[in-house]
Protein backbone atom coordinates (compact mmCIF):
# COMPACT_ATOMS: atom_id res chain seq x y z
CA UNK A 1 0.00 0.00 0.00
CA UNK A 2 2.69 2.47 0.91
CA UNK A 3 4.58 1.73 -2.29
CA UNK A 4 1.71 3.25 -4.25
CA UNK A 5 2.15 6.42 -2.21
CA UNK A 6 5.87 6.61 -2.87
CA UNK A 7 5.54 6.18 -6.63
CA UNK A 8 2.74 8.76 -6.64
CA UNK A 9 5.00 11.16 -4.70
CA UNK A 10 7.73 10.73 -7.30
CA UNK A 11 5.35 11.62 -10.08
CA UNK A 12 3.95 14.56 -8.15
CA UNK A 13 7.50 15.89 -8.28
CA UNK A 14 7.66 15.35 -12.04
CA UNK A 15 4.30 17.08 -12.47
CA UNK A 16 5.69 20.00 -10.52
CA UNK A 17 8.61 20.26 -12.92
CA UNK A 18 6.28 20.29 -15.90
CA UNK A 19 3.88 22.89 -14.61
CA UNK A 20 5.76 25.35 -12.44
CA UNK A 21 7.12 28.59 -13.80
CA UNK A 22 9.39 29.74 -11.02
CA UNK A 23 12.94 28.48 -10.75
CA UNK A 24 12.89 27.98 -6.98
CA UNK A 25 9.67 26.01 -7.21
CA UNK A 26 11.26 23.81 -9.84
CA UNK A 27 14.15 23.06 -7.51
CA UNK A 28 11.68 22.13 -4.75
CA UNK A 29 9.82 19.82 -7.17
CA UNK A 30 13.12 18.17 -8.04
CA UNK A 31 13.67 17.48 -4.33
CA UNK A 32 10.17 16.05 -3.92
CA UNK A 33 10.80 13.70 -6.82
CA UNK A 34 14.07 12.50 -5.32
CA UNK A 35 12.36 12.03 -1.96
CA UNK A 36 9.68 9.81 -3.46
CA UNK A 37 12.28 7.80 -5.32
CA UNK A 38 14.40 7.21 -2.21
CA UNK A 39 11.37 6.10 -0.21
CA UNK A 40 10.42 3.68 -2.97
CA UNK A 41 13.91 2.19 -2.99
CA UNK A 42 13.92 1.60 0.76
CA UNK A 43 10.50 0.02 0.55
CA UNK A 44 11.73 -2.66 -1.85
CA UNK A 45 13.89 -3.99 0.94
CA UNK A 46 11.29 -4.50 3.63
CA UNK A 47 10.58 -7.96 4.98
CA UNK A 48 7.67 -8.62 7.31
CA UNK A 49 8.55 -9.07 11.00
CA UNK A 50 12.25 -8.44 10.53
CA UNK A 51 14.51 -6.14 12.49
CA UNK A 52 17.23 -3.63 11.69
CA UNK A 53 20.42 -5.13 10.26
CA UNK A 54 22.78 -4.57 13.17
CA UNK A 55 24.31 -7.42 15.11
CA UNK A 56 24.36 -6.99 18.91
CA UNK A 57 21.06 -5.21 19.13
CA UNK A 58 19.41 -8.22 20.58
CA UNK A 59 17.90 -9.92 17.55
CA UNK A 60 18.93 -13.18 16.04
CA UNK A 61 19.27 -13.57 12.34
CA UNK A 62 16.05 -12.02 11.07
CA UNK A 63 17.16 -8.90 9.28
CA UNK A 64 15.69 -6.53 6.75
CA UNK A 65 17.42 -6.35 3.39
CA UNK A 66 20.41 -4.01 3.87
CA UNK A 67 21.36 -3.42 0.23
CA UNK A 68 18.68 -0.83 -0.65
CA UNK A 69 19.66 1.12 2.45
CA UNK A 70 23.23 1.36 1.17
CA UNK A 71 21.95 2.50 -2.22
CA UNK A 72 19.72 5.18 -0.74
CA UNK A 73 22.67 6.49 1.29
CA UNK A 74 24.48 7.18 -1.97
CA UNK A 75 21.41 8.57 -3.72
CA UNK A 76 20.70 11.08 -0.96
CA UNK A 77 24.22 12.47 -1.10
CA UNK A 78 24.07 12.77 -4.89
CA UNK A 79 20.78 14.62 -4.57
CA UNK A 80 22.42 17.00 -2.12
CA UNK A 81 25.20 17.73 -4.61
CA UNK A 82 22.78 18.44 -7.44
CA UNK A 83 20.63 20.70 -5.26
CA UNK A 84 23.68 22.72 -4.20
CA UNK A 85 24.70 23.31 -7.82
CA UNK A 86 21.12 24.14 -8.80
CA UNK A 87 20.76 26.74 -6.07
CA UNK A 88 24.02 28.39 -7.07
CA UNK A 89 22.80 28.50 -10.68
CA UNK A 90 19.53 30.05 -9.50
CA UNK A 91 21.48 32.78 -7.73
CA UNK A 92 23.47 33.49 -10.87
CA UNK A 93 20.30 33.55 -12.97
CA UNK A 94 18.87 36.17 -10.63
CA UNK A 95 22.04 38.21 -10.95
CA UNK A 96 21.98 38.04 -14.75
CA UNK A 97 18.29 38.36 -15.57
CA UNK A 98 16.85 39.98 -12.48
CA UNK A 99 13.95 37.58 -12.08
CA UNK A 100 13.08 34.00 -11.19
CA UNK A 101 10.15 33.58 -13.59
CA UNK A 102 10.81 31.42 -16.63
CA UNK A 103 8.59 33.44 -18.98
CA UNK A 104 10.55 36.63 -18.46
CA UNK A 105 13.88 34.83 -18.72
CA UNK A 106 12.94 33.21 -22.00
CA UNK A 107 12.12 36.62 -23.38
CA UNK A 108 15.58 37.96 -22.66
CA UNK A 109 17.42 34.80 -23.64
CA UNK A 110 18.31 34.67 -27.29
CA UNK A 111 19.12 30.98 -27.18
Amino acid at each position, binding site marked *: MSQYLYIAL*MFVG*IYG*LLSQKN*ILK*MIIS*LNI*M*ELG*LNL*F*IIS*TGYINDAKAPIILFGNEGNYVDP*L*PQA*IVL*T*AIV*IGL*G*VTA*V*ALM*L*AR*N*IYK*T*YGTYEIDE*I*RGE*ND*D
Partner: protein
Amino acid sequence: MINPVLLIAIPLLAAFISVLLKKLSMVLLFGVSIFTAISGFFLQKGMFMIGGWKPPFGINLMIDDYSFIIIIVINLLFFITLLSGMWDLKKNKTILMVILAGINGLVMTGDLFNLFVFLEIITISGYILAASSGKYYSVFKYLVLGTVGSSLYLFGIMVLYGTLGTLNMADIAQHVPDISNGVKLISLTFIFAGLGVEAKLLPFNAWVKGIYGNTTPLTGPLFSTVFATAAIAVFGRVFGQILVPDSTIVFAFIALGLITFIFAEASAMASKKLRELLTFSSIGQAGLIITMFLIGGFYAALIQLINNAFAKTILFSYAAKAYKSNGNDSIDNMSGLFRKNVMLGFGFTVATLSLIGLPLFFGFYAKISMLQSAFAVNMWIPAFIILGSLIEGIYYIRLLVKLWNPGVEGQESSELVQSQFVIKNGFSLSLIAVLIGILFVVSGIIPDFLTENISKAADSLSDAATYLSTVLGGI
Protein backbone atom coordinates in the same frame (compact mmCIF):
# COMPACT_ATOMS: atom_id res chain seq x y z
CA MET B 1 50.26 -4.85 -18.44
CA ILE B 2 48.38 -2.23 -16.56
CA ASN B 3 45.55 -2.88 -14.16
CA PRO B 4 42.49 -0.97 -15.39
CA VAL B 5 41.62 0.27 -11.92
CA LEU B 6 44.59 2.59 -12.24
CA LEU B 7 42.82 4.40 -15.06
CA ILE B 8 40.24 5.49 -12.50
CA ALA B 9 42.32 5.72 -9.33
CA ILE B 10 45.22 7.81 -10.63
CA PRO B 11 43.15 10.65 -12.14
CA LEU B 12 41.09 10.84 -8.92
CA LEU B 13 44.21 10.90 -6.77
CA ALA B 14 45.63 13.66 -8.97
CA ALA B 15 42.37 15.61 -8.64
CA PHE B 16 42.49 15.48 -4.83
CA ILE B 17 46.17 16.45 -4.76
CA SER B 18 45.60 19.36 -7.09
CA VAL B 19 43.32 20.96 -4.51
CA LEU B 20 46.18 20.94 -2.02
CA LEU B 21 48.91 22.08 -4.40
CA LYS B 22 47.31 24.47 -6.83
CA LYS B 23 50.52 25.34 -8.61
CA LEU B 24 50.96 21.80 -9.89
CA SER B 25 47.50 21.33 -11.37
CA MET B 26 48.50 22.00 -15.00
CA VAL B 27 51.35 19.53 -14.80
CA LEU B 28 49.13 16.95 -13.10
CA LEU B 29 46.38 17.35 -15.68
CA PHE B 30 48.58 16.83 -18.70
CA GLY B 31 50.57 14.10 -17.02
CA VAL B 32 47.48 12.12 -16.11
CA SER B 33 45.97 12.57 -19.55
CA ILE B 34 49.11 11.34 -21.29
CA PHE B 35 49.28 8.42 -18.86
CA THR B 36 45.75 7.25 -19.63
CA ALA B 37 46.07 7.82 -23.36
CA ILE B 38 49.16 5.65 -23.57
CA SER B 39 48.23 2.99 -21.05
CA GLY B 40 44.97 2.41 -22.89
CA PHE B 41 46.96 0.33 -25.34
CA PHE B 42 48.52 -1.86 -22.65
CA LEU B 43 45.47 -2.75 -20.61
CA GLN B 44 45.11 -6.18 -19.15
CA LYS B 45 41.94 -7.79 -20.43
CA GLY B 46 39.48 -9.74 -18.33
CA MET B 47 37.41 -9.27 -15.24
CA PHE B 48 38.67 -7.39 -12.22
CA MET B 49 37.05 -7.53 -8.82
CA ILE B 50 37.11 -4.54 -6.52
CA GLY B 51 38.07 -5.37 -2.97
CA GLY B 52 38.43 -9.01 -3.83
CA TRP B 53 34.74 -9.89 -3.56
CA LYS B 54 33.52 -12.01 -6.42
CA PRO B 55 30.56 -10.83 -8.47
CA PRO B 56 27.55 -10.68 -8.04
CA PHE B 57 28.36 -9.78 -4.44
CA GLY B 58 31.02 -7.23 -5.22
CA ILE B 59 31.56 -4.77 -8.03
CA ASN B 60 33.58 -5.85 -11.03
CA LEU B 61 35.21 -4.12 -13.95
CA MET B 62 35.03 -5.85 -17.30
CA ILE B 63 37.58 -5.30 -20.07
CA ASP B 64 36.60 -7.22 -23.17
CA ASP B 65 37.38 -6.26 -26.77
CA TYR B 66 34.49 -3.80 -26.85
CA SER B 67 35.53 -1.81 -23.77
CA PHE B 68 39.13 -2.00 -24.91
CA ILE B 69 38.50 -0.09 -28.14
CA ILE B 70 36.18 2.43 -26.53
CA ILE B 71 38.71 3.19 -23.79
CA ILE B 72 41.50 3.79 -26.27
CA VAL B 73 39.30 6.09 -28.34
CA ILE B 74 38.00 8.09 -25.37
CA ASN B 75 41.38 8.68 -23.77
CA LEU B 76 42.97 9.75 -27.05
CA LEU B 77 40.11 12.13 -27.73
CA PHE B 78 40.41 13.59 -24.23
CA PHE B 79 44.05 14.35 -24.83
CA ILE B 80 43.32 15.99 -28.19
CA THR B 81 40.58 18.05 -26.54
CA LEU B 82 43.06 19.29 -23.96
CA LEU B 83 45.43 20.37 -26.71
CA SER B 84 42.67 22.19 -28.52
CA GLY B 85 41.31 23.92 -25.43
CA MET B 86 44.61 24.73 -23.73
CA TRP B 87 43.94 28.43 -23.59
CA ASP B 88 40.53 28.17 -21.94
CA LEU B 89 41.36 26.00 -18.98
CA LYS B 90 41.43 28.72 -16.29
CA LYS B 91 40.02 27.13 -13.13
CA ASN B 92 38.65 23.92 -14.59
CA LYS B 93 41.66 21.69 -14.19
CA THR B 94 40.49 19.68 -11.21
CA ILE B 95 37.11 19.01 -12.75
CA LEU B 96 38.75 17.79 -15.96
CA MET B 97 40.71 15.20 -14.02
CA VAL B 98 37.53 13.99 -12.35
CA ILE B 99 35.86 13.77 -15.77
CA LEU B 100 38.72 11.60 -17.01
CA ALA B 101 38.23 9.17 -14.12
CA GLY B 102 34.48 9.24 -14.64
CA ILE B 103 34.43 8.37 -18.33
CA ASN B 104 36.85 5.51 -17.82
CA GLY B 105 34.75 4.14 -14.99
CA LEU B 106 31.54 4.51 -16.99
CA VAL B 107 32.75 2.34 -19.84
CA MET B 108 34.49 -0.31 -17.76
CA THR B 109 31.97 -1.03 -15.03
CA GLY B 110 30.02 -4.22 -14.69
CA ASP B 111 27.38 -3.17 -12.21
CA LEU B 112 24.23 -1.18 -12.90
CA PHE B 113 24.28 0.98 -9.78
CA ASN B 114 27.93 1.79 -10.31
CA LEU B 115 26.92 3.01 -13.76
CA PHE B 116 24.45 5.39 -12.12
CA VAL B 117 27.13 6.81 -9.83
CA PHE B 118 29.62 7.40 -12.66
CA LEU B 119 26.87 8.86 -14.85
CA GLU B 120 26.13 11.37 -12.08
CA ILE B 121 29.83 12.23 -11.76
CA ILE B 122 30.02 13.00 -15.47
CA THR B 123 26.81 14.96 -15.73
CA ILE B 124 27.44 17.12 -12.66
CA SER B 125 30.90 17.96 -14.00
CA GLY B 126 29.22 18.76 -17.30
CA TYR B 127 26.89 21.25 -15.61
CA ILE B 128 29.80 23.04 -13.99
CA LEU B 129 31.89 23.18 -17.15
CA ALA B 130 28.97 24.37 -19.25
CA ALA B 131 28.29 27.19 -16.81
CA SER B 132 31.54 28.81 -17.85
CA SER B 133 29.78 29.97 -21.00
CA GLY B 134 27.62 32.38 -19.04
CA LYS B 135 24.26 31.08 -20.26
CA TYR B 136 22.92 30.03 -16.88
CA TYR B 137 19.36 29.31 -17.92
CA SER B 138 20.41 26.74 -20.52
CA VAL B 139 22.60 25.03 -17.94
CA PHE B 140 19.65 25.00 -15.52
CA LYS B 141 17.51 23.30 -18.14
CA TYR B 142 20.28 20.73 -18.64
CA LEU B 143 20.45 20.20 -14.89
CA VAL B 144 16.72 19.57 -14.51
CA LEU B 145 16.50 17.22 -17.48
CA GLY B 146 19.65 15.36 -16.49
CA THR B 147 18.50 14.83 -12.92
CA VAL B 148 15.06 13.62 -14.00
CA GLY B 149 16.75 11.23 -16.43
CA SER B 150 19.05 9.77 -13.78
CA SER B 151 16.17 9.38 -11.35
CA LEU B 152 14.11 7.49 -13.93
CA TYR B 153 17.12 5.26 -14.60
CA LEU B 154 17.48 4.55 -10.87
CA PHE B 155 13.77 3.73 -10.67
CA GLY B 156 14.17 1.28 -13.53
CA ILE B 157 17.08 -0.58 -11.98
CA MET B 158 15.41 -0.76 -8.57
CA VAL B 159 12.36 -2.35 -10.18
CA LEU B 160 14.76 -4.93 -11.57
CA TYR B 161 16.28 -5.38 -8.12
CA GLY B 162 12.87 -5.85 -6.57
CA THR B 163 12.20 -8.63 -9.02
CA LEU B 164 15.53 -10.38 -9.39
CA GLY B 165 17.43 -9.49 -6.24
CA THR B 166 20.72 -8.52 -7.84
CA LEU B 167 22.37 -5.53 -9.45
CA ASN B 168 25.19 -7.13 -11.39
CA MET B 169 25.06 -6.83 -15.18
CA ALA B 170 25.95 -10.43 -15.91
CA ASP B 171 23.51 -11.81 -13.36
CA ILE B 172 20.71 -9.68 -14.75
CA ALA B 173 21.56 -10.66 -18.32
CA GLN B 174 21.10 -14.27 -17.32
CA HIS B 175 17.73 -13.84 -15.66
CA VAL B 176 15.99 -11.10 -17.63
CA PRO B 177 14.37 -13.30 -20.29
CA ASP B 178 12.42 -15.12 -17.59
CA ILE B 179 10.59 -12.29 -15.90
CA SER B 180 7.05 -11.34 -16.72
CA ASN B 181 6.31 -8.95 -19.53
CA GLY B 182 4.82 -6.13 -17.51
CA VAL B 183 7.85 -5.75 -15.28
CA LYS B 184 10.20 -6.04 -18.24
CA LEU B 185 8.31 -3.32 -20.08
CA ILE B 186 8.45 -0.90 -17.16
CA SER B 187 12.08 -1.42 -16.30
CA LEU B 188 13.35 -1.33 -19.87
CA THR B 189 11.36 1.77 -20.69
CA PHE B 190 12.60 3.69 -17.67
CA ILE B 191 16.22 2.65 -18.19
CA PHE B 192 15.97 3.65 -21.86
CA ALA B 193 14.53 7.04 -20.87
CA GLY B 194 17.25 7.57 -18.30
CA LEU B 195 20.15 6.76 -20.61
CA GLY B 196 18.50 8.54 -23.51
CA VAL B 197 18.71 11.96 -21.86
CA GLU B 198 22.49 11.96 -21.95
CA ALA B 199 22.57 10.23 -25.34
CA LYS B 200 20.43 13.00 -26.87
CA LEU B 201 17.40 11.05 -28.05
CA LEU B 202 14.35 12.87 -29.18
CA PRO B 203 11.85 13.55 -26.43
CA PHE B 204 14.66 14.22 -23.98
CA ASN B 205 17.04 16.47 -25.85
CA ALA B 206 15.64 19.93 -25.22
CA TRP B 207 18.86 20.79 -23.44
CA VAL B 208 21.25 20.10 -26.32
CA LYS B 209 20.72 23.23 -28.36
CA GLY B 210 21.46 25.53 -25.45
CA ILE B 211 24.56 23.72 -24.27
CA TYR B 212 26.25 22.63 -27.51
CA GLY B 213 25.33 25.83 -29.25
CA ASN B 214 27.27 27.91 -26.74
CA THR B 215 30.51 26.06 -26.34
CA THR B 216 34.05 27.29 -25.85
CA PRO B 217 37.08 25.62 -27.49
CA LEU B 218 37.38 23.43 -24.41
CA THR B 219 33.81 22.35 -23.84
CA GLY B 220 32.86 21.98 -27.50
CA PRO B 221 35.04 19.01 -28.41
CA LEU B 222 34.69 17.64 -24.86
CA PHE B 223 30.91 17.41 -24.92
CA SER B 224 30.43 16.43 -28.51
CA THR B 225 33.11 13.80 -28.76
CA VAL B 226 34.16 12.49 -25.36
CA PHE B 227 30.82 12.63 -23.53
CA ALA B 228 28.78 11.62 -26.54
CA THR B 229 30.99 8.63 -27.34
CA ALA B 230 30.95 7.43 -23.74
CA ALA B 231 27.17 7.83 -23.42
CA ILE B 232 26.43 6.02 -26.67
CA ALA B 233 28.94 3.27 -25.87
CA VAL B 234 27.16 2.66 -22.56
CA PHE B 235 23.88 2.51 -24.45
CA GLY B 236 25.34 -0.09 -26.75
CA ARG B 237 26.57 -2.16 -23.83
CA VAL B 238 23.30 -2.06 -21.88
CA PHE B 239 20.86 -2.52 -24.72
CA GLY B 240 23.00 -4.60 -27.01
CA GLN B 241 24.18 -7.18 -24.56
CA ILE B 242 22.53 -7.02 -21.16
CA LEU B 243 18.90 -6.05 -21.54
CA VAL B 244 18.12 -7.06 -25.10
CA PRO B 245 14.56 -5.88 -25.69
CA ASP B 246 11.86 -8.08 -27.16
CA SER B 247 10.58 -7.45 -30.64
CA THR B 248 7.51 -5.58 -29.47
CA ILE B 249 9.35 -3.04 -27.36
CA VAL B 250 12.30 -2.68 -29.66
CA PHE B 251 10.28 -1.25 -32.51
CA ALA B 252 9.22 1.69 -30.37
CA PHE B 253 12.86 2.35 -29.45
CA ILE B 254 14.02 2.06 -33.06
CA ALA B 255 11.27 4.44 -34.13
CA LEU B 256 12.49 7.01 -31.60
CA GLY B 257 16.05 6.67 -32.87
CA LEU B 258 15.06 7.13 -36.50
CA ILE B 259 12.78 10.07 -35.76
CA THR B 260 15.65 11.72 -33.89
CA PHE B 261 17.90 11.22 -36.89
CA ILE B 262 15.50 12.67 -39.44
CA PHE B 263 14.35 15.65 -37.39
CA ALA B 264 17.89 16.57 -36.42
CA GLU B 265 19.18 16.49 -39.98
CA ALA B 266 16.25 18.57 -41.16
CA SER B 267 16.88 21.17 -38.45
CA ALA B 268 20.56 21.25 -39.35
CA MET B 269 19.69 22.09 -42.92
CA ALA B 270 17.86 25.19 -41.76
CA SER B 271 20.46 26.62 -39.43
CA LYS B 272 22.68 29.54 -40.21
CA LYS B 273 25.18 29.36 -37.41
CA LEU B 274 28.00 26.89 -37.51
CA ARG B 275 27.80 25.63 -33.92
CA GLU B 276 24.04 25.14 -34.24
CA LEU B 277 24.50 23.14 -37.43
CA LEU B 278 27.07 20.91 -35.79
CA THR B 279 24.80 20.48 -32.75
CA PHE B 280 21.98 19.12 -34.84
CA SER B 281 24.37 16.94 -36.76
CA SER B 282 25.59 15.45 -33.46
CA ILE B 283 22.02 14.72 -32.37
CA GLY B 284 21.32 13.07 -35.70
CA GLN B 285 24.41 10.88 -35.52
CA ALA B 286 23.48 9.83 -31.99
CA GLY B 287 20.03 8.74 -33.16
CA LEU B 288 21.51 6.83 -36.09
CA ILE B 289 24.12 4.98 -34.06
CA ILE B 290 21.61 4.03 -31.37
CA THR B 291 19.27 2.64 -34.02
CA MET B 292 22.16 0.54 -35.29
CA PHE B 293 22.84 -0.83 -31.79
CA LEU B 294 19.20 -1.74 -31.37
CA ILE B 295 18.85 -3.67 -34.61
CA GLY B 296 22.00 -5.64 -33.95
CA GLY B 297 24.40 -4.01 -36.35
CA PHE B 298 27.19 -3.60 -33.81
CA TYR B 299 30.02 -3.45 -36.36
CA ALA B 300 28.40 -0.60 -38.29
CA ALA B 301 27.54 1.26 -35.12
CA LEU B 302 31.11 1.07 -33.81
CA ILE B 303 32.68 2.27 -37.05
CA GLN B 304 30.29 5.19 -37.30
CA LEU B 305 30.86 6.02 -33.61
CA ILE B 306 34.63 6.28 -34.06
CA ASN B 307 34.20 8.11 -37.36
CA ASN B 308 31.87 10.66 -35.80
CA ALA B 309 34.07 11.15 -32.74
CA PHE B 310 37.23 12.03 -34.63
CA ALA B 311 35.46 14.16 -37.20
CA LYS B 312 33.55 16.21 -34.66
CA THR B 313 36.79 16.98 -32.80
CA ILE B 314 38.05 19.08 -35.66
CA LEU B 315 34.68 20.54 -36.58
CA PHE B 316 33.73 21.69 -33.09
CA SER B 317 37.20 23.00 -32.27
CA TYR B 318 37.18 25.10 -35.37
CA ALA B 319 33.64 26.40 -34.78
CA ALA B 320 34.31 27.30 -31.16
CA LYS B 321 37.58 29.04 -31.98
CA ALA B 322 35.91 31.01 -34.76
CA TYR B 323 33.24 32.17 -32.31
CA LYS B 324 35.81 33.09 -29.70
CA SER B 325 37.98 35.09 -32.06
CA ASN B 326 35.21 36.87 -33.91
CA GLY B 327 32.20 37.11 -31.64
CA ASN B 328 29.86 35.24 -33.94
CA ASP B 329 29.81 32.05 -35.89
CA SER B 330 27.43 32.83 -38.68
CA ILE B 331 28.33 30.87 -41.78
CA ASP B 332 27.92 33.73 -44.21
CA ASN B 333 30.68 35.66 -42.53
CA MET B 334 33.14 32.86 -43.02
CA SER B 335 33.12 32.52 -46.77
CA GLY B 336 36.45 31.98 -48.35
CA LEU B 337 38.25 31.33 -45.09
CA PHE B 338 39.93 28.18 -46.26
CA ARG B 339 41.66 29.83 -49.15
CA LYS B 340 43.93 31.42 -46.57
CA ASN B 341 44.25 28.46 -44.17
CA VAL B 342 44.84 25.55 -46.47
CA MET B 343 45.92 23.08 -43.77
CA LEU B 344 42.84 23.72 -41.68
CA GLY B 345 40.69 23.53 -44.77
CA PHE B 346 42.16 20.18 -45.75
CA GLY B 347 41.48 18.65 -42.34
CA PHE B 348 38.00 20.12 -42.12
CA THR B 349 37.05 18.94 -45.59
CA VAL B 350 38.31 15.42 -45.07
CA ALA B 351 36.48 15.18 -41.73
CA THR B 352 33.22 16.34 -43.28
CA LEU B 353 33.45 14.04 -46.27
CA SER B 354 34.24 11.09 -44.03
CA LEU B 355 31.24 11.93 -41.87
CA ILE B 356 28.97 11.88 -44.90
CA GLY B 357 30.46 8.61 -46.00
CA LEU B 358 31.97 9.25 -49.38
CA PRO B 359 34.21 6.56 -50.90
CA LEU B 360 37.96 6.87 -50.34
CA PHE B 361 37.39 7.91 -46.71
CA PHE B 362 36.92 5.88 -43.58
CA GLY B 363 33.24 6.77 -43.28
CA PHE B 364 32.47 4.88 -46.46
CA TYR B 365 32.81 1.54 -44.69
CA ALA B 366 30.46 2.81 -42.01
CA LYS B 367 27.75 3.65 -44.53
CA ILE B 368 28.09 0.34 -46.36
CA SER B 369 27.84 -1.79 -43.24
CA MET B 370 24.95 0.32 -41.90
CA LEU B 371 22.94 -0.30 -45.04
CA GLN B 372 23.87 -3.97 -44.98
CA SER B 373 22.63 -4.48 -41.42
CA ALA B 374 19.55 -2.37 -42.03
CA PHE B 375 18.50 -4.29 -45.15
CA ALA B 376 18.61 -7.50 -43.17
CA VAL B 377 15.76 -6.31 -40.93
CA ASN B 378 13.14 -4.76 -43.15
CA MET B 379 12.78 -2.22 -45.95
CA TRP B 380 11.70 0.85 -44.00
CA ILE B 381 14.86 1.35 -41.96
CA PRO B 382 17.27 1.64 -44.92
CA ALA B 383 14.85 4.06 -46.55
CA PHE B 384 15.04 6.37 -43.55
CA ILE B 385 18.80 6.04 -43.36
CA ILE B 386 19.25 6.94 -47.01
CA LEU B 387 16.88 9.89 -46.67
CA GLY B 388 18.73 11.24 -43.67
CA SER B 389 22.14 10.73 -45.26
CA LEU B 390 21.04 12.62 -48.36
CA ILE B 391 19.94 15.61 -46.29
CA GLU B 392 23.20 15.45 -44.37
CA GLY B 393 25.23 15.33 -47.57
CA ILE B 394 23.41 18.34 -48.98
CA TYR B 395 23.99 20.68 -46.10
CA TYR B 396 27.58 19.64 -45.48
CA ILE B 397 28.58 20.10 -49.10
CA ARG B 398 26.80 23.43 -49.13
CA LEU B 399 28.84 24.39 -46.05
CA LEU B 400 32.11 23.34 -47.66
CA VAL B 401 31.40 25.19 -50.87
CA LYS B 402 30.72 28.33 -48.92
CA LEU B 403 33.87 28.02 -46.87
CA TRP B 404 36.18 27.46 -49.83
CA ASN B 405 34.86 30.16 -52.13
CA PRO B 406 34.91 33.80 -51.23
CA GLY B 407 31.36 35.06 -51.43
CA VAL B 408 29.84 37.81 -53.47
CA GLU B 409 30.13 40.12 -50.48
CA GLY B 410 33.65 40.56 -51.56
CA GLN B 411 37.14 40.06 -50.42
CA GLU B 412 36.89 42.32 -47.41
CA SER B 413 34.64 40.01 -45.41
CA SER B 414 37.05 37.12 -45.71
CA GLU B 415 39.95 39.42 -44.96
CA LEU B 416 38.28 40.61 -41.80
CA VAL B 417 37.62 37.11 -40.51
CA GLN B 418 41.09 35.97 -41.44
CA SER B 419 42.97 38.68 -39.70
CA GLN B 420 41.18 38.17 -36.41
CA PHE B 421 41.11 34.43 -36.52
CA VAL B 422 44.53 32.97 -36.18
CA ILE B 423 45.64 34.89 -33.15
CA LYS B 424 45.41 32.22 -30.53
CA ASN B 425 46.78 28.83 -31.28
CA GLY B 426 45.44 28.51 -34.76
CA PHE B 427 48.55 26.68 -35.82
CA SER B 428 48.22 23.74 -33.48
CA LEU B 429 44.60 23.33 -34.48
CA SER B 430 45.63 23.16 -38.13
CA LEU B 431 48.28 20.62 -37.27
CA ILE B 432 45.80 18.37 -35.48
CA ALA B 433 43.38 18.79 -38.36
CA VAL B 434 45.94 17.70 -40.92
CA LEU B 435 46.97 14.68 -38.87
CA ILE B 436 43.41 13.47 -38.39
CA GLY B 437 42.69 14.16 -42.03
CA ILE B 438 45.59 12.01 -43.13
CA LEU B 439 44.38 9.29 -40.74
CA PHE B 440 40.95 9.33 -42.36
CA VAL B 441 42.36 9.08 -45.86
CA VAL B 442 44.84 6.34 -45.02
CA SER B 443 42.29 4.21 -43.22
CA GLY B 444 39.91 4.81 -46.08
CA ILE B 445 42.30 3.18 -48.48
CA ILE B 446 43.79 0.49 -46.23
CA PRO B 447 41.15 -0.16 -43.60
CA ASP B 448 42.18 -3.62 -42.53
CA PHE B 449 44.05 -2.81 -39.34
CA LEU B 450 41.18 -0.84 -37.87
CA THR B 451 38.32 -2.92 -39.20
CA GLU B 452 39.79 -6.13 -37.88
CA ASN B 453 39.91 -4.80 -34.33
CA ILE B 454 36.49 -3.22 -34.62
CA SER B 455 34.92 -6.42 -35.84
CA LYS B 456 36.53 -8.27 -32.93
CA ALA B 457 34.93 -5.72 -30.62
CA ALA B 458 31.56 -6.09 -32.28
CA ASP B 459 31.71 -9.85 -32.00
CA SER B 460 32.52 -9.69 -28.33
CA LEU B 461 29.48 -7.47 -27.79
CA SER B 462 27.13 -9.88 -29.49
CA ASP B 463 28.56 -12.81 -27.59
CA ALA B 464 26.75 -12.69 -24.29
CA ALA B 465 27.79 -16.22 -23.36
CA THR B 466 31.48 -15.37 -23.11
CA TYR B 467 30.66 -12.30 -21.03
CA LEU B 468 28.65 -14.38 -18.61
CA SER B 469 31.20 -17.10 -18.28
CA THR B 470 34.04 -14.66 -17.71
CA VAL B 471 32.22 -12.83 -14.98
CA LEU B 472 30.36 -15.62 -13.24
CA GLY B 473 32.69 -18.44 -14.19
CA GLY B 474 34.27 -18.55 -10.80
CA ILE B 475 31.06 -19.64 -9.12
